[in-house]
């Protein structure tokens, strides 16, 4: 099988090091290889201590996000073939590094949790009462696609761990439940999204939507939430649906 020689630069860090350092690996890459395959090949044959998260390898579980040649991507869907002969892999930005490419994303998960992303049980359990037309379903089609890969947090120029701005994906999640035709208590999500720890930090640069691998368009969600918050829709109106 034809292979090409690739230089893979990976940012390494392990507890005790003063600061992260780039390490260079060389690899014979086949035409099908993804960046994730390359890292696995390096881990298997060159350096067992190289550390990164992955599971599904089909761009669905959101584990394998990293910054490849400057862009935050899912490594399992990033083909090596399309990249230059030198590939540089770094951890997601805006998060503390735990080890090599593994970053601490708990703050982002907390922010998602804080928008109360669920419906309260509505009616009788057993029948199919909650009709939803294909058109109504379409309204949440985009925002419900988020795989929590946190790439948008890495792309965002405003988000910082521990600070008030909720960040893109948490906004998209809140919006998903507010746009949901079956939701009878939208106040819950709207209050969370438009409160002090909500959307207000967003400067609408839109980097998050450009970077999102699932076309969730969190920037649009944040924008709409801002409008809703600013209009401060009376409860009646909002809960009518």
């Amino acid at each position, binding site marked *: 099988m034809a292979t090409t020689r690739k230089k893979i630069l990976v940012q390494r860090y392990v507890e005790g090091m003063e600061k992260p350092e780039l390490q260079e690996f060389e690899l014979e890459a086949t035409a099908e290889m993804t960046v994730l395959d390359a890292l696995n090949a390096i881990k298997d044959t060159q350096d067992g201590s190289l*550390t990164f998260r992955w599971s599904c390898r089909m761009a*669905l*579980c959101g584990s394998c996000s990293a910054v490849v040649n400057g862009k935050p991507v899912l490594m399992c869907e990033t083909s090596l073939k399309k990249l230059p002969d030198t590939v540089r892999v770094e951890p997601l930005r805006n998060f503390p590094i*735990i*080890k090599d490419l593994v970053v601490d994303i708990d703050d982002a998960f907390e922010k998602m*949790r804080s928008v109360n992303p*669920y419906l309260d049980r509505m009616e009788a359990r057993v029948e199919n009462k909650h009709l939803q037309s294909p058109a109504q379903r379409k309204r949440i*089609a985009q925002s419900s696609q988020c795989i929590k890969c946190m790439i948008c947090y890495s792309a965002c120029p405003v988000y910082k761990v521990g600070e008030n701005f909720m960040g893109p994906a948490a906004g998209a999640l809140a919006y998903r439940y507010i746009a949901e035709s079956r939701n009878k208590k939208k106040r819950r999500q709207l209050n969370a999204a438009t409160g002090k720890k909500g959307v207000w930090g967003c400067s609408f640069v839109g980097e998050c939507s450009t970077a999102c691998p699932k076309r969730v368009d969190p920037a649009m969600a944040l924008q709409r939430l801002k409008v809703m918050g600013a209009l401060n829709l009376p409860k009646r109106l909002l809960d009518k649906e």
Partner: protein
Amino acid sequence: MQIIDSDVVIIGGGGAGLRAAIAVAETAPDLKVNMISKVYPVRSHTVSAEGGIAGVVKEDDSFESHCFDTIRGSDYLADQDAVEFFVEDAPKRIYELEEWGCPWSRFEDGTIAVRAFGGMSVKRTVYAADKTGFYMLSALWERSLKYPQIKNYDEWHVTRLFRVGEKMAGLYAINLKNGEHAVFRAKAFVLSTGGACRIFSFNTNGNIKTGDGMALAYNIGASLKDMEFVQFHPTGLPHTGILITEGARGEGGYLLNNKGERFMKEYLPAKMELGPRDIVSRSIVSEIKAGRAFKGPYGSYVHLDIRHLGEKKIMERLPLVREVALEFAHIDPVHEPIPVMPVAHYYMGGVHTDKETATNVSGLYAAGEVACVTINGSNRLGSNSLAECLVFGNAAGVQASRFAQETALQTVSEAEVRDEERRITQLYERNGAENLSKVRESMQRTMHELVGIERNEKELEAALDAILKLQERWKRIGLQDKSKTFNTEFTSLLELENMLVVSEACVRSALAREESRGSHTRSDFPARDDKNFLKHLLVERGADGMILKDHPVTITKWQPQERKY
């Protein structure tokens, strides 16, 4: 040593585990639930399920029909009382998820849409585009956030279970983020750690599906059941093994050989491409043997053709098929047929439970792919397993909360805890000549080549010999990564140990079952043999290794017949 107590511990945060946690929170709101998962719950492999979830939700369908399809599909090895319970409960669980916001796909009238699936005699597979598992898992995870009594221990890896007498009492786990160890104690436990198809080199499973729960439970005396039965899905992409959902055939896709013929007409004319998976996979193998397959760098394959569905329908119903084919096979299914070959996909066998999810270790319940209830018998029907996660996940949660309310916390033996601590420390420090990935590859190749779709005594004996040798080699694997934080080389070592246990159980059971049934095809025993093998095989841990035992199949009203379609 840190000790963390709660009423119930859920091991695993996939579809089954999350459903169990919610069940505890809803049936017994006072109970504290700790959920331990080696990945964030939303990363669990349930996320990758595509095609849909089965349940009787339409007027033209009946419980009777879903039961019969499931039992016939299982080649009469399913326990029929469990199937009846499962079929009646599944629609409730589907509607419930609907109430929690799961965006099921819809018909124009706003009701939940259904599609055709292999081996199902009517359209009864509910779906959410072709990302059903993803939407289900998201809805369950988001729902679980409603309950403050559920506490998540994400990226904690469970390494051992502890028993006190006959009762499950605790477990040992490592926090990957900082390397800290802890003992979790609880009154009841739910095991929901998913399947084990990573034991094969060519599989659809995520990196986490390493059979941990099966090995952990086996080690404390729980029985494993039906371990010879592994489902090979007919349509995996060559090389990566990434799945093309059966939904593609459910929506009308064709399977074609290198002559452009829909070859299923030779094997199963009544069902064609929508036959059960065991039969379709075997048919592909026959086409390959007859020289009617295409040859590629990664083996022989056939074509899955959905071009005639047209771009609009493909984008509406099968967007992920297109996405995946484009990204991972560089083929646009709107314009070209997709190359596919059979791929290891789902583990029918698992930890033996009764129909209420209880294992034979008191206080330990099991649900989801790790468990074997069994509704799947020797061949699972596609879309039954997501429903299984909900039905039995819920049942396990309810049972565990009932049990937890009737019992007290037990003190785990300090000596056993120290043993485990010592074992872990020694593993971290081990210097050995063997290489982790070589031993793993060798196991995967052995299982794939000798314990695949077609089996025979000679190859199974060779496989057993190889697996036992690999278990010895495992003991000599040295680690390069000595750090205590996020040591994935270390967790891979533990996972490999577990996979070698599962592999051995699989091979031993496959050797003992001298017949062909469902997914288990013995070329030396080509017929089904109800006289001798209408029974489950249990694998138990004895003083000198694995012991096999018989266990009866429960038949209620569907007497075994020849499996005809």
